[in-house]
């Protein structure tokens, strides 16, 4: 027996529940390095694109910390038009369903991107990044406020027919309130969660280790935070949830599904194991088999009801 891993994120049907987290896989660069990581994913989530090109934050941008890593990458990307003209066609040619991550610094940035990408073939959803902790304006400052979140999602909803996934930050006092605001605005799904803001100090200089001073914490230490976010938002609103944060095994994925997610994203653990998604998927099937579950879809009804 092998469990049926098919799942859905709203109306979007997936062959299995494992995809990448935005900003943790450049499928084109990986292919050039001989790594076909995208083939292991249910769909491919792009790095966040902003209206104008960005170089990102100063180096150092990454460091390992107890329980995970910090990043202060700062959304480097070629800008919306260059993305649509060059990166998107090359990425589309990989033949994977695409979710394009969108970031911005004011509300109109998000609406502009949604309108520009509406109708582009190969895109099955847009992920609104209102949660990046590594930029000085926009993003997380929008996603920290229910009214702003609702307004941005509503603006995007009017600009595109594509499903809208809203990626939220754990750096808020009442995440369920933000989730409900996204739902009111017209979101189709939530992605929970982005990284948790953190700081590392260089032992030699006693200065911040990262060039951007603070960074986003990912890895094992984020997992309980993200699980709590999934659980809280699943209880608060009716939106499907894609869980992300510290997933490195089938057990981790199963925990997120049990907490209320319908799919999961793998991120920083794939830095050391590029084909992690395949192992997570296979381990998940084995775990479901071992529990006598024939399908991912059975998990919710048996564990949450």
């Amino acid at each position, binding site marked *: 027996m092998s469990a049926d891993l098919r799942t859905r994120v709203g109306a979007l049907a997936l062959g299995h529940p494992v995809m990448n987290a935005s*900003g*943790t*896989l*450049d499928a*084109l*660069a*990986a292919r*050039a*390095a001989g*790594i076909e*990581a995208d083939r292991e994913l249910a769909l491919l989530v792009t*790095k966040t694109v902003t209206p104008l090109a960005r*170089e*990102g934050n100063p*180096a*150092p*941008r*990454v*460091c*390992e910390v107890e*329980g*995970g*890593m910090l*990043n202060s*990458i700062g959304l*480097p990307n070629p800008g919306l038009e260059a993305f649509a003209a060059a990166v998107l066609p090359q990425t589309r040619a990989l033949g994977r369903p695409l979710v394009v991550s969108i970031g911005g610094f004011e509300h109109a940035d998000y609406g502009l991107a949604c309108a520009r990408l509406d109708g582009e073939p190969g895109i099955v959803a847009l992920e609104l990044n209102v949660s990046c902790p590594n930029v000085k304006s926009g993003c997380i400052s929008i996603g920290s406020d229910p009214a702003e979140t609702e307004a941005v999602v509503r603006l995007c909803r009017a600009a595109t027919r594509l499903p809208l996934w809203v990626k939220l930050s754990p750096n808020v006092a009442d995440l369920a309130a933000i989730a409900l605001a996204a739902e009111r605005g017209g979101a189709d799904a939530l992605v929970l969660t982005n990284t948790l803001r953190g700081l590392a100090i260089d032992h030699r200089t006693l200065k911040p280790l990262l060039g951007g001073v603070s960074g986003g914490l990912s*890895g*094992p230490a984020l997992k309980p935070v993200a699980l709590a976010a999934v659980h809280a938002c699943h209880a608060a609103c009716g939106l499907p949830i894609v869980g992300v944060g510290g997933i490195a095994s089938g057990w981790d994925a199963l925990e997120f599904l049990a907490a209320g997610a319908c799919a999961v994203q793998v991120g*920083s*653990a*794939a*830095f*050391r*194991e*590029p*084909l992690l998604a395949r192992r997570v998927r296979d381990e998940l099937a084995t775990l479901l088999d071992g529990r006598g579950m024939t399908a991912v879809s059975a998990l919710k009804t048996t564990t949450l009801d």
Partner: protein
Amino acid sequence: MTLSRVASCEPLGPYSHVRLERTFAPGDPGQFHMLRPLAHGGLLARPLSAVASDDASVTFLCQPGSGALAALAHVGAEVEVIGPFGRGFDAGAAGAEPVLVGGGFGAALLAPLSRLLPSAPLLAAFRDAAAARAAELVPAAEREIALPPANVLDALAPRLAGASCVLAAGPDGLVRAVAAACAAAGVPCQVALEAPMACGYGACYGCAVSLGGKLVRLCVEGPVVAGERLAAA
């Protein structure tokens, strides 16, 4: 990703000379692998470039310190390996009179290149005699070792006029100074850069360095880059 094991580990001055069972391709000179000793338990692998290989093993030089690299320096240690990654040295473009310039433990990266370019002299700078033992790994027949207060750039200057290409590896300040000297003399130059790196294959965008006024991913466009790009930064 493949699993390997540390077959031997010998001190070499302040460094560890770590020989891994050859369960993976050694790559070209200047390319790198991402190594993760399982005993460390940390999230990330570490980038290291091979300094030698044979049918049974691939050898690295590392500064153990603490953490992941300390865990690497133990006989029998199990190590996850991915790679080789990145763009290495282009030995074919080195011409008839290449010169190798190294500094610190990065000088050992020049060892496989020296085997391809046996006529190339090695000019290398170290903080002390113990650190200079890294140069023992480089088989160049002709060598000049600079210890403080000597400056390796002073050894390079008289050789630039006759050099077809300079190939350099070491601390950022050293390779940038070498690139600037080569640019001023009109001598082609290839330099190996270093940057903190989480993945090694273009996924994390963590290894950004400034080249020609732009931030680029070192694992994608390097770690060996044309010195002209550094000089223009």
